[in-house]
């Protein structure tokens, strides 16, 4: 008897059977491999196919910016795993930002979505920063919301799409726009790299010999890469569906002896001395296509990043993380680690039409859009 009950519980856990019907109602589920749990979803923003599709249109629509030239996609390019190839992001009126545009793959699992700001705990809330932030201006739409929402409402696509996604609140407003953008970003899953096929799919030929050697070095105590770049996302920031708590990892990597005032780290928001130069660990999935690197894009390539860590921090900082102690490595070892990092690229994610620009050519949504 007891054994039967236990087995039933185990069955539910293993299959996720209790959850499937609820998710199916909205017509959306993630195409995740069996080994990957679903991400958490906020109570007031259930996923639906209609919402994700609306969010995708908004993501690529530069009419969301103050002058109609900057879309989310202007700094988040799918081919670069939703980064932009620049050292720091460029906003409206060619405003130079202070931070490197972060990639968006698997952001649904990240408890904090910002390089340094610990208060950015939902994608819904975070969307307000690029849209309306003024220091620096990114999309520069502060104070423009009435005009912006009216413009969206006048578009034939949005005239029906908002109602499909939000039957109880069928118009563009702060709530619906930020929820749809978050739902689209929450749909961006990337778990089909050669390394995934090797590690989880049992395809032992998916990795080159160099990448296999690099994997051993990556997870070796001599290099200590994996202490921060750990787990399925290769970052110590993680939260899944039904997580009892969120794991967050922010570190000072000794990039500067004195971090510049424009990007001082988490101290900017907490005022705590120990937060100087402290930034969130980025995921390494698709890292080979997201150059340049670090929170400010100040290292142009992976070889440079490894040189920074080999040195024990480019400049070194009084409070840098204790795991960053430096190492000696041969040229061959560095090449192997880079081969391993390159095996984390999910080509399908970079070209998946479900994440691509949905607008027809020369549409008003995109005709003035600056692309990276």
């Amino acid at each position, binding site marked *: 008897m007891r054994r039967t009950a236990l087995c039933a519980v185990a069955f539910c856990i293993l299959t996720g059977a209790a959850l499937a019907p609820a998710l199916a109602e909205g017509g959306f589920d993630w195409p995740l491999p069996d080994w990957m749990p679903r991400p958490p979803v906020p109570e007031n923003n259930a996923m639906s196919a209609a919402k994700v599709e609306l969010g995708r249109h908004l993501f690529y629509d530069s009419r969301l910016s103050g002058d109609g030239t900057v879309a989310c996609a202007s700094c988040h390019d799918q081919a670069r795993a939703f980064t932009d190839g620049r050292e720091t992001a460029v906003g409206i009126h060619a405003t130079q930002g202070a931070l490197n545009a972060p990639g968006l793959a698997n952001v649904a699992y990240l408890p904090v979505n910002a390089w340094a700001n610990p208060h950015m705990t939902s994608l819904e809330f975070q969307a307000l920063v690029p849209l309306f932030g003024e220091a620096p201006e990114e999309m520069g739409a502060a104070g423009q919301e009435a005009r912006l929402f009216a413009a969206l409402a006048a578009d034939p696509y949005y005239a029906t799409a908002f109602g499909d996604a939000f039957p109880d609140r069928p118009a563009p407003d*702060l709530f619906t726009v930020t929820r749809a953008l978050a739902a689209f970003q929450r749909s961006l899953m990337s778990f089909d790299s050669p390394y995934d096929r090797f590690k989880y799919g049992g395809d032992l030929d998916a990795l080159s010999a160099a990448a296999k050697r690099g994997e051993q070095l990556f997870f070796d105590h001599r290099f200590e890469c994996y202490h921060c770049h750990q787990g399925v996302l290769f970052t110590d920031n993680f939260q899944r569906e039904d997580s009892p708590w969120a794991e967050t990892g922010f570190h000072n990597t000794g990039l500067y002896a004195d971090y510049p005032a424009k990007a001082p780290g988490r101290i900017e928001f907490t005022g705590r001395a120990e937060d100087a130069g402290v930034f969130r660990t980025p995921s390494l999935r698709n890292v080979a296509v997201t150059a340049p690197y670090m929170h400010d894009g100040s290292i142009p390539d992976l070889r440079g990043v490894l040189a920074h860590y080999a040195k024990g921090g480019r400049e070194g900082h009084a409070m840098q993380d204790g795991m960053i102690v430096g190492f000696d490595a041969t040229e061959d070892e560095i090449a192997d680690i880079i081969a391993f990092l390159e095996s984390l690229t999910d080509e399908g994610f970079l070209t998946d039409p479900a994440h691509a620009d949905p607008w027809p050519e020369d549409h008003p949504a995109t005709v003035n859009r600056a692309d990276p």
Partner: protein
Amino acid sequence: MESRMKKLAILAACAATPGLADMPVTINFAAEIAGQPFACGTPYAGLGSTGAEVQGTDFRLYVSDVAMVAADGTRVPVALSETDWQHAGVALLDFEDGSAGCANGTTPLNTALTGTVAAAEYTGLSFKVGVPFEMNHGDPTMAPSPLNLTAMFWNWRGGYKFVRIDMVPTAGKQEGPKGWFLHLGSTMCDSAGKTDAPASPCANPNLMEVTLDGFDPATGTVVIDPAPVVAEADLLVNAPETSPGCMSFPGDADCTTVMARLGLPYGDIPAAAQMLIRAR
């Protein structure tokens, strides 16, 4: 002290009970720059340490915790009416009409607070400039007016801009990227958990406390003028790698002469008497 607190509590209880001899109260405000009435697009000369000429491009602020002050010093809360401009004791004062350079503004103006207060003789007015902590860190996408204006969001720092007075030198951009902006808001907002909203007040709440003795709402006007606040700041330059003007952030050289004159401490610099707001 204790008896005074008791009296205050009794008075507050009375004020909060509708029907008990409340009287309507309207408190009028005026926005000026260097003594001249504020209007979008108007130039104002002789500002700051270098006598800059500027155009005002925004002039808005949040006010909360409004009270009339009795002769014995007790504060009697004013119950602000619920309107598009006033919600749960917080009001937005708005002196820009969206014209000329005020491109990020809204057409309607709001230059007065309206509400009720327990009927009594009062000798002064007291209020805070800013949004109280409990309301400053919610989700603005679900907040009612006037806490839903994107131009007043301060989310990337946590909360709202309490004061937004934007000035652009008419001589054109010099060092400053766009102008000299006075933005006041809370900074250094730590939280207990690494992924929680701030649960305890920020290290620098930056809520301004204003008390105006001898103020009579029937005849007086509360005047807001940033000129004395920026008197020692050079509005033609911006400290490198900092936000344009003074946006309350620690370590901005553009703020060092400014924050004390808002009645607020700034780093090692102690607070002085606030010079932004006076009675007339």
